């Protein structure tokens, strides 16, 4: 018995396969769009989603680090509660209700996997209804300023010789600095740097000729043009950057703390030595690596039906970064988004950055308060010559790790957390060269909701940061 397959169905199948092959690569863009949010309590970045020609952002994710927030989604309607403010949105509709008043979005509201997405163009008029106070959104650059957080630079050219350009900021900054022939570029992603007043300043100087300011994709950029290579150095607790011509015999500067917010050690110019040639430490701030556990395909523990450990650790990590930065640490946040990192990558990055301390953050729905862990080392493998075995790299630093853990427990107990210390076979603690601890945050008196409470997390983060500061002198890669 023979059967002829209709020719049309074959053609349809082929067309579908062809569409999948061509459309799938287009769906992934190499240049991910982001919004950088600068607020007094936190600085963070969020991904931007493109839908039907509009740019969108998750409203819950935007508000979460700023206060107590919860949401529910049912039948095309999406409700959010931020502190005491309630708002209701409907999928596909531009009209919503906030505090009982109607409000129109610039594009239809979207619900994806219970996430509520608002158009980026609506943030400026929308957010003051939730946050009150000043909200300033640089839409084209995707930088959101909440409150008076902007840092304005001022320029001062010292004609020399040698010519020097001194940039003063109203608060410590930590840009990624890159150099290329004729230009030094400073990229401020973590710092709420704003325009100095003029987009471009021309100097009457043969060496340093011009400085220009621009913003793009969640970051501010200061470009300084020069007729010879320049090196950057920091002073005044990170509030001053000095650009000066590179010495003719240039030595490699000692490792500077890399810019925070990246998941890999940045490939940028380290801080320079001073002109006298003394190897003075140009960067005063020790580097702390904050590692929000899990991420991407690795969700971690299911804390509730809708809450994954990886989401709590990310918010917690951002808060801890802020708490450490305001206490004088440079911070490298190993994961500032929902991406997957292996334990070897985490250890490699921290070791490569020569961090002073490593802090891994976990969360659990079991128990209450917090547990602070140091490495429970496996059976020691023999080293090979000058090389220490990877799985027992922590040995020289273990004593200081235990000190750090003890102090963290003490500080958390002062803030009414039921905290205890212990040892755990938890990677990558045993692979790290510097003092390393893991903090597992558990609910407080209010149950699981504590884990998503910015207040609760901030208290924990402040306690950890205070503890780390108190043992600052003992930190660093141990010999």
């Amino acid at each position, binding site marked *: 018995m023979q059967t002829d397959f209709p020719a049309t169905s074959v053609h349809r199948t082929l067309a579908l396969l062809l569409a999948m092959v061509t459309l799938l690569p287009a769906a992934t863009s190499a240049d991910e769009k982001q919004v950088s949010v600068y607020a007094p309590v936190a600085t963070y970045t969020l991904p931007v989603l493109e839908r039907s020609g509009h740019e969108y952002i998750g409203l819950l994710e935007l508000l979460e680090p700023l206060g107590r927030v919860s949401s529910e989604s049912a039948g095309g309607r999406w409700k959010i509660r931020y502190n005491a403010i309630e708002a209701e949105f409907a999928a596909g509709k531009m009209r919503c209700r906030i505090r009982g008043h109607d409000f129109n979005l610039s594009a239809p509201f979207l619900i994806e996997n219970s996430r509520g997405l608002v158009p980026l163009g609506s943030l400026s008029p929308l957010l003051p209804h939730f946050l009150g106070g000043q909200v300033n959104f640089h839409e084209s650059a995707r930088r959101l300023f909440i409150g008076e957080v902007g840092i304005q630079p001022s320029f001062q050219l010292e004609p020399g010789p040698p010519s020097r350009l001194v940039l003063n900021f109203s608060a410590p900054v930590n840009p990624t600095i890159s150099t290329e022939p004729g230009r030094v570029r400073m990229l401020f992603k973590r710092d709420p740097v704003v325009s100095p007043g003029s987009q471009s300043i021309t100097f009457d100087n043969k060496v340093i000729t011009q400085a220009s300011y621009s913003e793009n994709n969640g970051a501010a950029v200061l470009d300084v043009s020069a007729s010879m290579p320049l090196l950057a150095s920091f002073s005044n607790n990170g509030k001053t950057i000095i650009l000066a011509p590179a010495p003719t015999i240039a030595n490699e500067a000692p490792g500077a703390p890399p810019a925070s917010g990246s998941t890999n050690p940045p490939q940028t110019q380290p801080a320079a030595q001073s002109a006298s040639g003394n190897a003075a430490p140009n960067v005063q701030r020790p580097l702390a690596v904050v590692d929000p556990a899990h991420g991407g395909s690795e969700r971690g523990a299911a804390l509730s039906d809708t809450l994954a450990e990886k989401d709590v650790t990310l918010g917690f990590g951002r808060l801890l970064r802020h708490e450490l930065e305001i206490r004088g640490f440079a911070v490298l946040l190993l994961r500032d988004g929902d991406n997957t990192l292996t334990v070897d990558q985490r250890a490699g990055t921290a070791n490569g950055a020569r961090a002073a301390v490593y802090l891994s953050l976990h969360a659990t729905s079991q128990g209450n308060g917090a547990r602070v862990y140091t490495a429970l080392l496996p059976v020691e493998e023999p080293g090979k010559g000058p090389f220490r075995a990877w799985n027992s790299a922590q040995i020289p630093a273990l004593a200081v790790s235990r000190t750090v853990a003890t102090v963290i427990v003490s500080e958390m107990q002062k803030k009414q957390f039921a905290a205890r*210390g212990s040892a*755990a076979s938890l990677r990558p603690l*045993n692979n790290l060269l510097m003092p390393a601890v893991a903090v597992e945050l558990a609910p407080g008196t209010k149950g699981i909701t504590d884990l998503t409470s910015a207040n609760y997390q901030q208290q924990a983060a402040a306690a950890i940061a205070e503890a780390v500061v108190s043992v600052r002198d003992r930190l660093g890669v141990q010999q």
Partner: protein
Amino acid sequence: MIPRHLLLSVAAMLVLVIGLGIYGRRMRRQAGELEEPAASELPVARPASGPTETVTLYVADDAAGLLRAQSAKILLPGGRQQRAEELLRALLRIYQQPGAAHPLAPASDIRSIYLVDPGAAVIDVNAAFADQHRSGILSEQLTVNSLVETLSANVPGVRRVDILVEGKTRETLAGHADLTQFFDVQAVSQAVSGP
């Protein structure tokens, strides 16, 4: 007009389907007539024989976050390896009781324990042990510590312990506790008896 060969094919298939259905029912009836052991969700097997011995089990308590040494009388077979297996199964039975202070899934089981001289023990657990284990640093570490301490306390000479899942190395027990290396019994004991 339906072709003849098509009619014959359909008829043959119908006969086959009906015949298989009748055969299947008969097989099911025969299976039901066989005497079955009492249904049990616990895959843990009891030893066939052996004297009752007093052993020390290190039992985890999640709320307190520690291990408690608990004396128990259990039937232990003669062989060293079988004794070790029965020892950890006795521990498992405690965790599988309703309301256990450190609950483990009812389907969790110790597949086997290998004692490799000098001083190494390999505990092979089944997939359910790991797949259905609660995820969390404390919970997983307590399970690991409990197995290591119980084994080393009752099987002389064990100095390092490895844990496999279905005969293979797994990265973590349930997302946290590292299972890729041998556990140092001395280090675990120090951690257990720590402050």
